[in-house]
Structure formats: C-alpha cells, structure tokens
C-alpha cells in the first residue's frame, strides 16, 4: 500500500547501494527511486489522494443505488428509516468527528517530532474508532433481534420507531419470525417496480400518474386477499401476514393479533421495505469494513510512534494514514443524514 511503500529500509531493497560511500548523507528513509525527501513525501501523499478517489467511487456505486431506489420509492425510505435510532447514529457521528480531530492533532504532533503527543493522539483515535464499531455492533444486534434484515430475511417484530425494551408496557407481544414456508415468491405481483402508495406528504401514486391502489383492487388480482382475516398468531406459530406480505401495515403499526386489516378505502401500506435494509447494511457494512481497515492502519502507526520511527524529518505514513481516516469519517458524514435523518 502507498502507506507502507516508504517505511522500509531502501538499502535492503537495493543491495548495490547498500554500503556505498557514494551515498553518504543519504537520508535513511529515502527510497532509491526518489531524489529528495520532498519528492518522496509529495509523491506518497499524491498516491494516497488518488487511492481516496478510488474509495469515493467505490462508495459512489452504493450512493447511486441509494439515489435510484429512493427516487423511485421514497415511501420505502421514509417509512423504514424510522427503524433507525437517530440518537446512536448522532453519537457515532460525533465520535468519528472527534477521532478525526485527534488524528489531525496526531499529524500535527508528528510534523513537530512530538512523539509522546503523537502516541496519545493515535491511541485516542483508535479508541474513537473502536467506540464507533461498538455502537455499530449494538445497532446491528438490535436489527438482528428485531428481524430488520435484508431481502427475504426482513421479518419485522416491532413497529417502526419502537426502540424500547421488549418487556416494556407499551411493547407489542414479540413473536418469533415466521418460518420461510410462510414466504411465497409468487404472492407479490411479478413486477420489478411495484406501485406503492406513499404516505403523508410524499406524492401519492395518483400524483405520479398511477391508478390509485386500493385494497379492493388488489384483492381482485391474483395476489393474496387483504380481506382474509389473518390467522390469530400465537407466540410461536408463524404468521403469514408478517413476512414479505404484499402489505405491511404502515405507520399505524404492525398488524397485531386481533387487529382488523386496513379498510378498503385506506391507502395501502408500504411494500418492499427490505430494500431499505439491503442498502443500509450494504453501505454501513462496507463503511464498517473500512473503519476496521483504518483501525489496523492506526494501530500500526501507533506501534511505529511508540518505537520512535517517526520524526520531524519523516512522518509520511502518519500523514497518509490521517488522510485515509479523514475519508472514512467523511463517508460516514454522508451516510448519517442519508440513512438516519430523512425528513
């Protein structure tokens, strides 16, 4: 990697130069292909910026997928984002911003040869990153337990916006996710862009030129009938109305036992909500992998700082490690509002 290309002893790489007296005064960290330390530093920094550009394009594909699906199905994103805990997302944002600050302070210290401060700052950055990962772990764990996963694994157990204790007073009775047998690929009509009635202020299907969907219209198609009373679910029996059903009962909460299905005149709830979670896990997962990689880099820098590898004359790895960490932070700065703060 560009970060490591200058750290090794150039003499080992080039035996002919090894003990040559013609290279007296040759700076120890100057690689043989470069003429001056300044050229080396500028080249490495430029190489890292180019690598960051590739990372931006890598995430760009996912941001593009987000944009496409959100443009076509805004109701999915508006509905599903309420499952996310904005508080912990904001905490994560603050943690990463602070860790970016400590990283920048570390680079500042490295430029001035202040080894102690550099080590402390790198350690703080590492802690920040670990904190971020810890919170992400908690968030993912909650999603797993709540059945809020992607694709066919989307089997929600709670209504959106509910983040409390399952045993709490206002909690709906948690139920086991239905077995896969309840799922049927055939139940949704086979269209790639199912018309979904949006909610609230989002433009509705009629405004977009589609015929308004009603429960009756769908009941008349080959899809499963809405008017059929869902079987009263027990704590253990699978409830077919929960999983990839053509309907999720929307903002009024999930269809609870004994609850009547929506009236024919009411707008339909949101379909294909799992798409949001597919994109959520893809984006935050890829970001998380980059955080892990960043932590490995920072850990390695910390080891180098402690043993005194860096000085005012040579701090290039710290500089480019810092650049990478700032990009990881920047990507989260974009992810957070797009996923958590949708209005």
């Amino acid at each position, binding site marked *: 990697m560009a970060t490591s290309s200058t750290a090794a002893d150039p003499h080992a790489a080039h035996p*002919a130069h090894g003990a040559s007296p013609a290279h007296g005064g040759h700076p120890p960290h100057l690689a043989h292909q470069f003429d001056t330390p300044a050229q080396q530093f500028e080249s490495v920094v430029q190489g890292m910026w180019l690598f960051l550009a590739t990372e931006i394009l890598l995430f760009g594909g996912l941001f593009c997928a987000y944009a496409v699906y959100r443009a076509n199905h805004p109701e999915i994103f508006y509905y599903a984002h309420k499952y996310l805990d904005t508080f912990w997302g904001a905490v994560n944002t603050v943690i990463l911003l602070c860790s970016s600050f400590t990283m920048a302070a570390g680079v500042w210290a490295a430029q001035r040869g202040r080894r102690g401060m550099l080590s402390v700052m790198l350690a703080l950055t590492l802690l920040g990153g670990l904190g971020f990962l810890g919170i992400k772990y908690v968030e993912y764990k909650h999603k797993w337990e709540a059945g809020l996963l992607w694709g066919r694994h989307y089997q929600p157990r709670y209504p959106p916006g509910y983040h409390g204790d399952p045993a709490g007073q206002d909690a709906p009775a948690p139920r086991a996710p239905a077995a896969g047998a309840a799922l049927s690929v055939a139940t949704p009509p086979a269209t790639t862009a199912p018309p979904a009635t949006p909610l609230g202020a989002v433009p509705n299907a009629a405004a977009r030129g589609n015929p308004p969907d009603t429960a009756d219209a769908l009941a008349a198609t080959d899809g499963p009938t809405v008017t059929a009373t869902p079987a009263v679910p027990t704590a253990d029996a699978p409830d077919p109305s929960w999983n990839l059903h053509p309907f999720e009962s929307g903002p009024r909460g999930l269809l609870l036992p004994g609850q009547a299905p929506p009236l024919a005149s009411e707008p339909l709830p949101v379909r294909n909500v799992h798409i949001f979670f597919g994109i959520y896990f893809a984006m935050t997962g890829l970001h998380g992998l980059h955080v892990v990689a960043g932590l490995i880099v920072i850990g390695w820098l910390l080891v180098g700082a402690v043993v005194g590898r860096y000085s005012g004359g040579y701090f290039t790895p710290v500089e480019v490690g810092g650049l990478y960490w700032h990009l990881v932070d920047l990507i989260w700065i974009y992810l957070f509002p797009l996923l958590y703060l949708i209005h």
Partner: protein
Amino acid sequence: MTAISPEAVFDRPADARPDYLRIRAGLASWLFTLDHKRIGVMYLVGILGAFLLGGIFALLIRTELFTPARTVMSADRYNQFFTLHGAIMTFLVIIPGIPAALGNFVLPIMLGARDLAFPRVNLASFYLWVVGAILAVLAIVLGSVDTGWTFYVPYATETTMGGVIPVLLGAFVLGFSSIFTGLNFIVTIHKMRPPGMTWFRLPLFLWALYATAIIQILATPVLGITLVLLIVERVFKLGIFLPALGGDPVLYQHFFWFYSHPAVYIMILPAMGIVSELISVFSRKHIFGYTFIAFSSIAIAIFGFFVWGHHMFVSGQSTMLSTIFSLLTYSVSIPSAVKVFNWLATMYRGSIALKTPMLYALAFIFLFGIGGLTGLFLGALATNVHLTDTYFVVAHFHYVMMGSTLIAMIGGLHYWWPKMTGRMYSEKAGVIAWALVFIGTNLTFFPQFIMGAHGMPRRYYNYPPEFQFLHQLSTVGSYLMAVGFFLTAAYLLHALFRGARAPANPWGGATLEWRCASPPPPDNFERPPVAGDPYDFSEIDYDPQTGGYVYTPRPAPAAASAAH
C-alpha cells in the same frame, strides 16, 4: 566514421554492472523483487500464459461451431467455454495487457527514472493479478460458470453453478491490481519526469498510459462495488438486483457497463500509444500532430465515461436516454479518427522500414479502422436493434480487442524485446508469423460481420445450416491465427537463448529507453538523462560497428558524458 565512446551512449561505462536479469538469481529474487523491469517480465509471462488459456477456449468454441449441431461438446459445456474465454481474455489479458506487461517495464526508463514511484505497490499489483488468475482457474475447477462474461442478473445470482463466486472474486481482485497500476503510473508521471521533459515532451506512449491510468483510477472501483454487490446478492440475497425481491436488474447493467465501457478504452489507449511510437520510429519522421494525439488520448478517456448506455439500447431504457448515449458514442469516435489521420500523415514522405514492429503497427491501423467504423453501425439506434446480440457485435469487438489491442501489444513486444532481453529475434520468422496472424484475424472475424448482419445470434450453440460456410471460414481463420501465435512464441523463445546480442538502440528510437543498455542495469540510469524532443531523429545516427543507433547530441560535448 568517428569512434563513438560508450560514455557518449550511456551515462556510465557500458559493461560496468550486470543487467537486471543477471544481477541476482533464484526464485526468491524474482518473487520478492521491487524492480519494475522484473515485475514487468513476470506480468508478461503471466499474461501470455493467460492468453494461451483463453485462446484454447477460443479454439474449442470455434471447433464446436464448425458444424451446426453438436461437434465436440454439449451445449452446457459450450456456454461455459465462451464465458471463460471472455472472462479470462477481458480481465486477465487485455485489460492488464499493455500497461502491466510493457508499461511497467518501459515507463520508468522512458522517464529516465530509476523505478516507478511505488515499487511495493507495483509488486502488490502483480500479486493481486496472480490471485485473480488463480481464482479464475479455480472457477473452472469448482463447477464452472456459464453466465457470459457480463454476469447479467438474474441468471448470475440464481444459477447453481459453483464457479460463479470464484470468478466474481477473481475479477474483483483483478480490479484492484488495475487500480494500483494506474495509481503508480499517474504519480510517476507527475513527480518523476527528468529535467527538460515538460508535459509536451512526454513520449506519446506515456500520454496514452497516463490517460489509461485516469480511467483505471476512476472506473475500476465501480466494477469493484458492482461485483461485491453481485456476490452479496448471490450469497445473502440482498434484494438490490433481483426482481423477485423488488430489485432492479437493469440497475446491474448500468453499474456493470459504467465500468466496462471505459474498460475498453483502458484496452485501446495504450495500444494507440504504442502505435504512435512505432509509426514515428519506423518512418524516421517526427510524429505529425503531437499535441492533437496527446489531447485525443485525454479526450477519449473523458468521453469514454459518458457512453455506457450504448450497451443497453435494447434493455428497455427510455428512447431519450438511448438517443443521448448514441450521440455521445459518435463523439468518442472523433478523437480516435484524429489519431489515425495523424499516423498516416506521419508516414507520408517518411523513410519507412518494414520491420516486424512496423508491420504490426500497420496491421493495427487497418484492423482498428474496420473495428472502429463498425462500432458506428452499432452506435446508431436503428441498426443497433437489428445487430445487438448478433455476431456483428462479436466481430466488432474482436477487431478492436484482438485485431487492435493485441496486435499492438505484440508489435510493442517485438519493439521492446531487444531492450527487455538483450537479444534480437529472427526478422524472417517475424514476418511469416505476422502474415499468419494478420490473415488469420481477418479470416476469423470478417465472416462474422456478414453472418451477424444476416441474423446469426451470438453465444448460440446451434445455428441454421445457411451459416455453416461462414462459420467454417471463421474456424479455419482461428486455426491460422493460432499457428501464427505459436510460431511467434517459438521464435521469441529461440531468440532468448540463441538470438544475436542487441545493441542499445536497434531501431533508432529517440525516446530515453534507447539510451541505456539492452538489457538495462538494475537502476536504469544513475542520473536521468536530459530529455529533448522524443521524436527528433536528427541526433540519432546509425553505427555499423554496433549494428545499432547512437545518440550524439549536436554540438557533441567535449566531455565524454552525454548526461549532465
């Protein structure tokens, strides 16, 4: 004739140190080398090996298509073979091809530098290529893949064939190999030019590699994320592309082609760079329109990002979008044509030497002319609907990939062979092999234009008997090509061991790589030579004593050193 001292030719005595091949021996000295020249040679060996593998699949395909019904294999096996042929040739041979095998070797020396900016990144890029190659071969063993090299969903995610994931992972890894190479080249060209080499004194091969590197940096990550999403879709059923889960399969096509169209410019730009060098040197004339050629490389790189939709005219995208893509596609043809006109103008009233590299360059102009012009048929909406997914498309892209990129790569290989190996090959064998390859290429692919226009679909195992004659012509042509390539390998290998020793500058080139020994010492130049005009041949004179050319700057310096 004046005695020309070695110091006037090199910046150190000619036989002061062993060359890069002989400086150290042993497998470890190669596997852990940081020398760009050794890495380039390893890449060359790997890429030619992959070309052999992909070529064998091609011959099997063509053999099967000799008769309308089953000839030598089942339909399923046929599907696997065209998929593997495409994937191996695209990802292992043609995309890395010239930048990795030739660019790695030549770029630093052309800049008068000691190495690339990041030798370790270079080695990492090679290791990644090897991993990608292993994964591709693993795919063959682990259950094969028959999705076509484009891996369209939903078949790519639904099929149970075991080779899909290894191939996707292999392509992902190869993408990073490509990115690292491009990153290295950009920084090297930015930061390590010698004194006197301003941007407009860069050799055109370096302009081409620079433009290629820009595409590698910007386009390849999109392939990376596309393949990752495809793997995740397949393994975890993410739901982003699969219609059964509310996803959009055309979105996959957009993502895939957003990379894969610029990828074809990664393939062709370095080839055009080589041709610029060859035409100028073997016409002994300054390249015509240097600035136009340089800017046209950048223009192709930029415009190439805006035309991916022309692979999707029949995917159901809106007519307005298709029209825009069609218009932009035509705009990309303009810089390419600019180059062809400049090459022809360079040759006009030049002193043309029909050596083997020049023959390949001339073949390139002819074959690229056909390949490029047939792209225009495909770029027009109305004809595209008729020609999509027929053999016309197959013929078009083989003319530009095989007939242009690969031909230029072999021409470049012959051009720089004396520099890389220190040996000359047999010119007579070179001409014979060239003729076989040239005739074979045309015989293989020209009939495919005809049968495609008459409706023969691509990737089809069976076909109506009226196409049989054209298929047979094509198959015979492919065997002819194969003979030509095997002959090339034979005489090049022979040259390695028995060839005449090469002078520093056998062809009379004016670029800096001809100022160091053949083969070069490990660090190329002690200090970079001062760069002048890379296409000014007035200071390059033939020296019958060495059988090569020498650079004698005028006025000749009193001191015995050409570099200062």
